[in-house]
């Protein structure tokens, strides 16, 4: 079974200030971007990140073939329950997301 990382150039995540995490998915081309966008509905993202589905913002940047996903941190950066000061490892959940067999 393929993972999302096998189908894209790279996926990275980072803080966008102390209260928000932002993930950038660098797709290979427009077709690739559209297919991946189709997989990333609110339910899927909510399942991965345990954030309510209507709190995800999803942007499409066609010129760069990038999908950007921003969402509020469940634990504010650096607070007692936070585990990732820079928010950089959140990307791994999308990197490892398993794709349907027919993808």
């Amino acid at each position: 079974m393929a993972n999302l990382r096998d189908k894209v150039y790279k996926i990275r995540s980072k803080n966008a200030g102390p209260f928000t995490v932002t993930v950038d998915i660098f797709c290979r081309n427009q077709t690739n971007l559209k297919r991946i966008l189709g997989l990333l509905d609110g339910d899927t993202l909510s399942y991965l990140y345990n954030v309510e589905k209507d709190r995800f913002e999803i942007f499409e940047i066609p010129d760069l073939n990038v999908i950007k996903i921003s969402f509020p941190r469940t634990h504010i950066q650096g607070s007692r329950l936070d585990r990732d000061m820079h928010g950089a490892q959140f990307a791994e959940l999308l990197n490892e997301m398993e794709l349907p067999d027919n993808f």
Partner: protein
Amino acid sequence: MIRVLVPSGVLGLEFSKEALQRGLANNPDIIAIDGGSTDSGPYYLGTANSKYSRAVTSGEWKYLLAARETADIPLVIGSSGTCGTDQSVDWMVEITKNLLHTTKKDLRIGTIKSSLTRQQVVSALEANRLKPLKHAPVISEEIINDCMGIVALMGVEQIQETLARNADIIIAGRATDTASIAALPLMSGIPPGIAWHGAKVAECGALCSTNPLSGCVQVDFHEDYFEIEPLDPMAQCTPHTVSAHMLYENSDPFILYEPGGYLDVKNSIYEAVSDRKVRVSGGKWVPFPQYSVKIEGVRIAGYQTTSLTMIRNAHYVRSIHTWIEKLKQFLENSLAEKFGVDADTCHLDFRIIGSEATLGSLENRSSLTVEVGILGLITAETQELANEIAKHINPYLLHFPLSEKEELPTFSFPYSPAETERGPLYEFCLNHALELDDPLEIFKIEVFEANG
């Protein structure tokens, strides 16, 4: 045309000295660099500390002061000393004076301070002049009064005022990443859509190029466009590297909020001028009717002591989750008797390194590892209590058995003492816009002779 030389994304992170010299040879109008960020966490604002060492900061600043002297142009640093508090500005001024003490020529240092008192922020809350920004935490007078450090992020107006007072070196408190770069172009009549966009692209230095580590970039601001090129001959700016920078640490790839309005780059055009220089046009600036600045605040959310235990025994590694659960239950039950506190005010958090220490409950994979580390985080209302509890749990981290039938195990501590006092646990607690009648209203500007 206004040419801005940006030596790197932040003072303290190195830049190529050769690239800086190449930049100077091109006769820039100003050197602008950023000095801070919240990215390394709340500790820095809580303590007014710098993330980068004084020696490294001073070493790099020395080069920039010399570059300024050679070119005889202003040098500006925004968000001095990581967090940009008033003390951080003083720290940077002291470093500067130490470096300038042999200079004969009189130089004018301008400082812009942006710390706020708790009372100022409480008054703003009462006057309904604080507006929550996206994902802002709920605030109250009590929370504001708990803050250890509060700063406002200046925009360009405060830097422009200091430039107008003929400061040669400007040491600014907390500022937006772009403000120190955008200030002079805007003051010189460059349209705001061009000035703010160019500043955003250059704010991390050569991160908008193919060789981020080279540091230096040069931005030329024109009436209808800006051009950006890296100053390391081996680095290239391409339409892709430049436009991709809008994604970086920004929740919206097309919109950038600044004091007084926002930049919209949805219709921007990125063109290659050469294989290493990019021309950008089309950025749009949308002013807000009400001027406001973002504020940041940090409070103490307890005191921490940590410990680290290593477990290599295969039986315990296999059963690590059960072991932690039992241990935690046992220790939490003992808190009331030993210390008169409970698990609601005193938190025992054990993170299994090798399993889910990074992602916690979001982790969706499991695999057996050779060994695990147990990072214990003890958070209590006082440091003394956190230390006491850490000492109390120490023998159990060393010897706690999985079941009553087993012999007492003994695990590994990598150092002595096994506990490490971490001090206060700081927490970001403000993400608000503060409305101002005048952009200079809360910022304290001074211009003085460096040798005076």
